[in-house]
Structure formats: C-alpha cells, structure tokens
C-alpha cells in the first residue's frame, strides 16, 4: 500500500489550487461583467465555483499521490486525470536531497528529491513529508540500496554523524561569502534596481556628474558622452550591488556546512533559513573539481565540487542544489581530494607548449582590434560621440592576458587519474579517474594545426560537462595529444577487460 505525502500537503495544495482557480474564475467573471454578460453576483458565483473546483483538485492530487519503497524500487503513483506510475530501482539512485524552508522547519516538514543518471531533471520530488519520514527515506534510498542496511541510521534531525569529514570554518565561510562572485545576482540587480526607483537614480547621477554625466535622466536629450559617463558609474554600482546580494544569499545558503561520510555515502547539511541536506553515493562520484578565482588563490582558499551523473546541467548550477564544499582552506581542500580520489591535485602541472601562448595573444589582439574598429565605425557613422578609442587601451592587456591564460592551463596524467587545469578568472582543476572515462576525443582546429597543437577531451558522465565544462586538455603538442589519447584509451580497455 503506497504511503501518502504528509497531510500538510493536502492543506497547502487545497489552498493553492483553490485560490488559483478561484481567482481565475473571478477574473473571467469580471471580463464577462465588462461585456455586460453578467452582473456582480455572476462574478462571485464564478469565483466560488473556481474555488471549490480548485480546492477539490488540490485535495484529489494529494489523494492520488502515493509512494512506496519495496523490493529494491521506489514506486511512485501520481496524477488525478492522467495517472502516472514510476519505478526507480534503488541501485540507480544517484543523489537524495532534502530541503526544508523556514515555514517547513517550523512545522517539522521536508521536501525530498531523488536524482538518477538518466533524464534532464529531478527524477522524483516528494513535497512534503515529515522530517522523520525524510530521514528514513534518505537512509533507505541513499547508497544504492545495499548500503542502506549497513549505514548507521541518521539521528533524529537528519544530521550527518559525529565525526564529520569537513566542517566549514568561520574564516572559510567569510572567504566564500566575500570572494565568490555570482553572475546571476547581477541580473537581479540590473532588473530589480529600477524598481527601487528614484533614490538609486539620484545617487548614480550625483556620482556621474564629475565625469560629465547628465543632469537628469532624460533619454531623449542624453548625449553619447553623457551615457558613457553614466555607464562608467552605474556598471560598478551594479557589480557592487550584485556582490552584496550574492554575499547575503551565500551566507544564508552555506552557513553551518557539514560534510560527513555515512556508510558508502557522503552526507552534507547546510543553510541558515532554508536547510539543505543530502547524500551523494561515493561509488557514483564521477569527477572532483577544485575551483579558485584569483582572489581566492591569493588568499589560499578553494572550493570543491563533487560531480555525479545525477545532477542535470542547469540544476547543479542552481545555487540551492550543488553538492560541494563551498570553500575551504586550500590545504584542507587538497586533503579532501586526496581522501576522495587518492591523488594530489596541488602538484605541478605540465603547461602547454610556449607557442600556445602566442596563439592566445593573437586571439585576444584580434578581439580587441575588432571591438575598437566597431567603436570607431560607430563613432564616425552615427556621429556625436568622441570616446571611440578607450577599447584600444585593452591592447596593453593582451600580453599579460595571453600569459595568464597560458600559465593557468595544464594537465597531469598520474597513475589512475587525469588532472586538468584551466581558466584564470575561475580556475578549475578537474580530477578525472580513468575508470570514469566515457569517450576520448582529440580535436584540432585550423589555427591549432598551424602550430601543431591539439585538444584532448576526456568525457565522463558527470553533469558538469553539460555546463560547458568537462575535462578538456587545451593546446597540447600534437604528438603528446595523440600519446595521451591512446594512453587514456588503453586505461579504459584494461578496465573493460
């Protein structure tokens, strides 16, 4: 007999759908009244009918939803009008995540999500169940079923057990909150700033005045130079705003982060207001990635991501759901990598050949030339704007940029692992165990062929590859690339037997 979700779900669903359909009825009634098809009483009648229908649907949804863990599968039946029955073999479960919002915590409720390797989204969402039930399910679903028997039962509040692998220190939380930049918040600030209104506008105008900014915001009379001055002020302002917002979100999301080993799973818990906890089966870990931006490198911190096949691209990027150590002292992060993969990620990397650096310089110089030319043509043909030359200043940045790109790329093929490093602004060091490789590509663009360089792509089933990441060894010497590709293939075959 399948279990129903917590009765609170029924209350919430009934209210939500009741209000939703009820208000739809109300608006339809208003439209009808506008068209003189009905009077006031008709509006209320439609709203009331909508309310009852919606509430009934909400209740039926709860009644129709059931789940059961039996015979090594998680079975879920759902749907009022279109019945759906899903069976998820426990052996295929990748991650189990539990999320508890402020209100849910108040009432002892939790939302449980189950991830499998296939498909693009979360495989099953149980929202909401009681805390105890969530902890019980996490214990049974985690670790691919077998381990659930041997794993010690989590304590009452679903906390990982006593000796954690990693506990986020105060300094580390501060470093994470202050040094991590989240582009998503920039969008929020840019779109949300105007809503805050005239106060922000006045501040920006005052700041832009010394640079020759406009006296007031009037798009019709704004000259190009004034617009540039205004941009010079408002872009940094938006960046700072985004940074402050991001810091607050990060603090809320990662306060009290704990990572522990529980049976054959990694279990994490974090969050100030909304609490997140979950398990990652160790046997399912695909790649481990060390992330450091320049500021973090200077201060000696690094973030760590554990990628499984479960998280589909987008979702893993979603701030709420990432299974990783947000930030750790670099040494502690390296120790964790050693613990998880048995390999030292802090070693010296083999950089690409020096001719690759010339390639980057040419690439950046061409980009700067294109931007400058576009600005010049714009200034000439549209007229009335004299500041076309600032992009040319970027030429000075080309040699250091090329060098930094080069100096942050590299790889090591060590024993059973391939380690790949790339990126200056967000340097990623990806640890790819040989036995996780799926396919091996070697590719050479026209420009690479001119300099006898090649890329090697080590593809795994990790969700990270979808995010445009993955383990790409950039710009190896052509011969080295062929050798590396065949070594990786050989490593694969040994295992395949």
């Amino acid at each position, binding site marked *: 007999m399948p279990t129903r979700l917590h009765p609170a779900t029924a209350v919430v669903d009934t209210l939500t759908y009741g209000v939703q359909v009820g208000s739809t009825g109300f608006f339809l009634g208003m439209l009808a009244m506008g068209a003189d098809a009905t009077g006031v009483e008709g509006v209320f009648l439609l709203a009331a009918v909508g309310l009852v229908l919606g509430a009934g649907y909400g209740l039926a949804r709860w009644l129709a939803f059931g789940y059961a863990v039996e015979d090594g599968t998680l079975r879920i039946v759902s749907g009022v009008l279109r019945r759906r029955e899903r069976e998820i073999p426990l052996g295929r479960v990748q991650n189990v995540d539990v999320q508890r919002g402020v209100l849910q915590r108040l009432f002892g409720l939790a939302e449980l999500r189950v991830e499998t390797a296939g498909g693009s989204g979360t495989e099953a969402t149980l929202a909401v169940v009681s805390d105890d039930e969530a902890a019980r399910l996490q214990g049974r679903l985690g670790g691919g079923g077998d381990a659930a028997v041997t794993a010690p039962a989590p304590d009452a509040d679903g906390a990982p057990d006593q000796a954690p692998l990693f506990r986020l220190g105060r300094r580390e939380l501060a470093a994470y909150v202050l040094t991590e930049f989240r582009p998503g918040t920039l969008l929020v600030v840019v779109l949300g700033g105007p809503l805050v209104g005239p106060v922000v506008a006045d501040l920006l105008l005052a700041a832009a005045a010394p640079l020759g900014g406009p006296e007031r915001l009037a798009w019709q009379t704004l000259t190009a130079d004034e617009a540039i001055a205004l941009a010079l002020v408002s872009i940094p302002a938006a960046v700072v705003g985004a940074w402050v917002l991001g810091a607050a979100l990060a603090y809320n999301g990662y306060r009290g982060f704990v990572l522990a080993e529980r049976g054959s799973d990694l279990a994490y818990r974090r969050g100030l207001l909304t609490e997140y906890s979950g398990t990652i089966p160790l046997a399912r870990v695909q790649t481990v990635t060390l992330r450091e931006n320049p500021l973090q490198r200077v201060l000696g911190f690094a973030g760590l991501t554990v990628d499984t096949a479960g998280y589909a691209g987008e979702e893993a990027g979603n701030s709420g759901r990432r299974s990783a150590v947000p930030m750790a002292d670099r040494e502690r992060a390296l120790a964790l990598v050693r613990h998880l993969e048995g390999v030292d990620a802090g070693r010296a990397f083999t950089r690409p050949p020096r001719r690759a650096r010339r390639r980057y310089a040419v690439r950046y110089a061409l980009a700067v030339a294109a931007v400058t030319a576009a600005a010049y043509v714009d200034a000439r043909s549209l007229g009335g704007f004299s500041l076309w030359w600032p992009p040319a200043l970027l030429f000075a940045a080309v040699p250091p940029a090329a060098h930094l790109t080069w100096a942050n790329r590299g790889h090591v093929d060590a024993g059973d692992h391939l380690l790949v490093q790339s990126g200056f602004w967000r340097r990623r060091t990806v640890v790819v165990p040989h036995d996780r490789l799926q396919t091996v590509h070697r590719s050479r663009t026209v420009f690479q062929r001119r300099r006898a360089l090649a890329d090697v792509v080590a593809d795994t089933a990790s969700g990270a590859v979808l995010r445009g990441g993955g383990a790409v060894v950039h710009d190896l010497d052509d011969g080295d690339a062929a050798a590396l590709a065949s070594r990786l293939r050989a490593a694969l075959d040994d295992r*395949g037997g």
Partner: protein
Amino acid sequence: MERLDSRVRVAWSLGALAGGAVVGALAVFADRFVVPVPTWAVAAVAVAVAALGLVHAALRYRRWRYAVQADALYLERGVLTEVETAVPFVRIQHVDTRRGPLARLLGLATVVVYTAGSRGADVAVPGLSPARARELRDEIRSLAGGDGEDAV
C-alpha cells in the same frame, strides 16, 4: 579505415545549396525592408555561401573515416576542426539506426551510438548504405554486448 557511402556527398551538397538559398532569401528580405542591397550583391552572397558549402561538403566527405576496432568504435572527421573520437564498446549504452526523409530518398542511413557521457550524442556515423548501417549496428551491439557492468 572505412569511408562513407559516396552518395552522402549529394545529401551534404543539397544542404549547402539550401544554405545558399536561405542566405539569398535573407538578403532579399533585407533589400525590401531594411536597406537597399544591389541585386548582384544578393546573388554574389548566395552563390558564395553555396560554393563554400559545396567545398566544405566535398572536404568533409574526404576526411570522414571510421573503423570498428578491437575495443572501440573509432571516428575521424572534420574540416576546419579535425576531431578523432574513440568510443570504447564497454561504454556504449545503446545503438540506433536513423533515416530521415532525404536519407531515405538517397538510400542512406545513420548509425547513432549513445554513451552515458555528456557528449555522447555527438557520436553518429552518417552516410551509410542501409545494409551497412544494419550490419554496423549489429556488430557494435554484439561487441558492446552487456557484461552486466554499470556503464556509468
């Protein structure tokens, strides 16, 4: 190393001509509604795009190679970017053959190999005769033949 069926050049060339036609249509659209474009320029752009496409199709056919090796399906392809891919049989989840309407007209088929890897869908061998496609599919399937191991 095997090459593709030469008829695939016809399919790719038709694609190039279609590309030229689309660009030409866009130029005509721009001429009508945005800025006047001389007729010779419209024609030149369309012809240039089509010609580049035809050259690309020819080179692409010349570069394409595939081989069923002892342990992996091996592919070599690409004109501007040359790509060599090895798909180990132990990693293959399933194999499909696919035939679009144009391919059916020309008597061609594509074999698609899926792995759990995130770039897995990339691995397709186009331009095979239907018989060869079936043969290749069965060959890969038997070599990939599940040893019960989890391919993830």
